[in-house]
């Protein structure tokens, strides 16, 4: 939970031209923005480029932020989400044809899914709990539609509440909850189907 007064003061200093204040904002929020981008677009390179774009946009429009309208975190998440949507429309990712065995991510020590599942020495529950689960889930996330993906990322990975997610996505809270339910369920079905195919 951000300290509203601290962030508001930082923003004010930044708008006045304080470079150190801007650096502090970047240090505070780069990890969060990067994680949202990475989980949405799937690759570290794209996530890095998009994170930079988010901060450039933020830098140019910082004087438009008003604390009485909402939390700073919600504001920057909205900027992030809008840029991710623009990116998705430009690139028109084809998630249907991607295999879950494509090149592993740069962030985790990943093996192709089939190799991980072939380790029959482990109980299925232990396999799910293994450190490669994160990589598996990350790739399955890319198979979700953008609407479901962004909803589960903001709720289950970023711990945002329904009201703030509704603000970011510009949809009613009921729609947010429905998308989260469907996103979670589809993710589970995707991973169950993949495990069954290999076995």
């Amino acid at each position, binding site marked *: 939970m951000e300290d509203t007064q601290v962030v508001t003061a930082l923003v004010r200093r930044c708008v006045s031209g304080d470079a150190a204040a801007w650096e502090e904002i*970047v240090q505070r929020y780069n990890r969060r923005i*990067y994680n949202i981008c990475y989980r949405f677009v799937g690759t570290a390179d794209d996530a890095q480029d998009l*994170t930079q774009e988010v901060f450039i946009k933020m830098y140019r429009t910082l004087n438009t932020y008003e604390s009485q309208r909402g939390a700073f975190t919600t504001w920057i998440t909205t900027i992030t989400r809008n840029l991710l949507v623009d990116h998705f429309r430009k690139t028109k990712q084809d998630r249907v044809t991607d295999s879950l065995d494509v090149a592993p991510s740069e962030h*985790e020590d990943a093996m192709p899914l089939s190799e991980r599942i072939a380790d029959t020495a482990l109980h299925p529950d232990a396999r799910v709990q293994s450190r490669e689960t994160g990589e598996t889930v990350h790739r399955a996330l890319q198979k979700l539609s953008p609407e479901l993906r962004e909803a*589960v990322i903001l709720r289950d990975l970023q711990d945002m509440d329904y009201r703030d997610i509704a603000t970011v996505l510009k949809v009613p809270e009921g729609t947010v909850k429905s998308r989260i339910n469907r996103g*979670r369920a589809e*993710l589970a079905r995707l991973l169950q189907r993949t495990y069954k195919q290999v076995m």
Partner: protein
Amino acid sequence: MQCSEFDALLGDAIDQILSEQQMQRFQAHARVCELCGPLWAEAEQGRRLLKSVAEVTPPAHLVHNILVATSGVQTTGATAVQPGLSWMDRLREWSGGLVSPVWGVVRQPRFAMSFGMAFFSLSVALSRGEGRRHQACGPPAERHQAAIL
């Protein structure tokens, strides 16, 4: 309970914030509905899987790159130079920190024209200056003759 109400309460049920009465009605519907029952199990499993995903660490130079791209100022903290770079790359990186803020301004369209005109004016002034020097620097005999005349 209808499926629409079940769907609306599903998130709260997973978060375990439903009242006892709501939870009883919720579970009763899940027991009899062949769509909602499996949906509940899958949604819970999906949430567990997502919660198992760890946060990733951004690349080491992300903050530095953001600062250079925005305020043009390098980080005041740890060095932004990658280990293992040659002295030429380090020199390039160091001089980039000096040049890039200026270059960032020059590249803006509103300033590019001004800088272009300034450069052109300076070039003309220097070339005129060169011309006069050449006249004065002509062969000594010609200068003497020019002075007499």
